[in-house]
């Protein structure tokens, strides 16, 4: 193959990649555009590409138009996601330490136990959890979600963090120990700086999964502890008139995840594949 045809072929494939990228992104771009249209312009066929832009959809969503305010749901989601992420880190860090740096016996078995809980479908335990919550007055309580989200993300976090901590060279830890450093010092001065990007990525993924969760929140919360995804389900039967509002709502709720995901694209892969793919 001559270099010129190879170059042309390369450029052609680049164009195909661009085209596919745009096709995949189009629904999101269209959702964003629609969210800035008036409801009348949003619901037209053929679609109105050049219609006037307005913030009405967002005004409607944030409740100034008379609907329910989304703020409690957004705050609940923030609390549930941040608190459960914090608990996950507090539980997973020591566990990962025991599974990677100062290894317990049969550490692979323990690791696989954590993973196996992730494969237990949520519906398998939902009813007893619901009955328990009902009998202990924990229904519609955001802290119940925090506990469940912690259990949902802990296995992933333990896997990710043990793979990040295992990257800390044993020789450095041994050297520090020989120099007389004790465990807290080793953790703070040697392990933490090397593992910090990994810990941040773990926290990010736990945050995203908690923020996205619907089934637990749908079954276990009501008026008080409703989360953002549950708030969005209010739009499921939305007919005709509220398209711009639906788009604005979907975008606002997705914004934290989109921002976090773009910021950590590479670490996202490693985390989602439980540290198995580097």
């Amino acid at each position: 193959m001559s270099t010129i045809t190879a170059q042309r072929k390369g450029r052609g494939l680049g164009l195909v990649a661009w085209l596919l990228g745009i096709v995949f992104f189009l629904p999101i771009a269209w959702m964003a555009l629609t969210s800035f249209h008036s409801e009348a312009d949003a619901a037209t066929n053929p679609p109105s590409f050049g219609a006037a832009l307005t913030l009405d959809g967002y005004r409607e969503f944030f409740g100034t138009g008379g609907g329910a305010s989304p703020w409690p749901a957004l705050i609940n989601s923030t609390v549930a996601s941040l608190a459960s992420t914090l608990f996950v880190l507090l539980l997973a860090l020591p566990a990962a330490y025991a599974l990677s740096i100062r290894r317990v016996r049969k550490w692979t078995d323990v690791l696989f136990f954590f993973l196996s809980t992730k494969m237990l479908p949520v519906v398998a335990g939902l009813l007893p959890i619901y009955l328990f919550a009902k009998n202990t007055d924990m229904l519609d309580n955001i802290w119940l979600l925090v506990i469940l989200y912690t259990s949902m993300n802990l296995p992933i976090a333990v896997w990710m963090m043990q793979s990040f901590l295992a990257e800390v060279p044993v020789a450095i830890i041994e050297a520090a120990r020989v120099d007389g450093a004790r465990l807290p010092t080793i953790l703070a001065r040697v392990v933490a700086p090397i593992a910090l990007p990994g810990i941040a990525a773990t926290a990010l993924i736990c945050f995203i999964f908690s923020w996205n969760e619907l089934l637990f929140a749908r079954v276990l919360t009501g008026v008080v502890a409703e989360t953002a995804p549950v708030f969005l389900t209010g739009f499921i039967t939305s007919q005709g008139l509220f398209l711009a509002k639906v788009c604005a709502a979907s975008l606002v709720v997705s914004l934290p995840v989109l921002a976090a995901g773009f910021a950590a694209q590479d670490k996202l892969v490693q985390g989602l594949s439980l540290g198995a793919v580097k």
Partner: protein
Amino acid sequence: MTATTTAPLATAHVRTPDPSKARLRAWATRAPLLPALIFMIVVTQLPFVATVVISFFDWNALYPKARHFTGVDNYREVLTDADLRHSVWTTVLLTVTVVLVSLVLGLLLALLLDRRFRGRGVVRTLLIAPFLVVPVAAALLWKHVLYNPEYGLLNGLLHYVGGPQPDWISNTPLLAVEASLIWQWTPFMMLILLAGLQSRDQQQMEAARVDGASGWQMFRYLTLPHLRRYLELGALLGSIYIVQNFDAVFTITSGGLGTANLPYTVYQSFYQAHENGLASAAGVLVVIGSIIIATFALRVVSSLFREEAGRA
């Protein structure tokens, strides 16, 4: 490639003759692990045991006094119920279709993105975006903004080419759910496969090129075997999540038009029909199905993991 390369650090220090001291040390090593382990057992395993127990009772939440032990009757009912058998089939079809199609599309995109071209970073970011939309929001986007027969984008674009204006969700409900999930999961597959492509042995690729191997030969005999593990990992992680999918089914069709999968059916039978015993039996069956998938999944992840541990 053996586990000995990862010998526990702790054992090096436990060569003390005093057995009680050794035991103490072993517990000190184990201690940091215990909070996480105990928490997981209490929050995930106990409820499942309770589900198994409830599955042997005839128990409608609206008539709690009539609750009584019925043995395997719930299982018999679940397995002979036409709706439930249909939802088993729907779950299989949904999972297999979404995983396979998104895997093939993901491979295609990963191969394209593995090449150097202008704006590759931007294209990569555009492609990841669908995976980063909150699942309920993504489902709403497909339901209202794309599929709506009157003002949805799909029919809007068809209008320009003078095509038909079908009602997508009513005509092809399962396909509508699948398409939205494929859109969300293709980026995930692409990310994993791209990581796989970029971990290829470049020297080996170069040597093959020098030896005059064609692009297809290199793909068939070098890239594809190398990617096998990554393809398996993507398929199995995807299956774990899609078998459990609730958001898309709940939002797009509310389980109607024959799209109810097992998670939705279980949700419905206890949340709406209040049949606690039946729901639990169905839940246990979902778990048995998941265990079958999980056995494969664990084997694949374990082999990847061993490779990784061996390399370290």
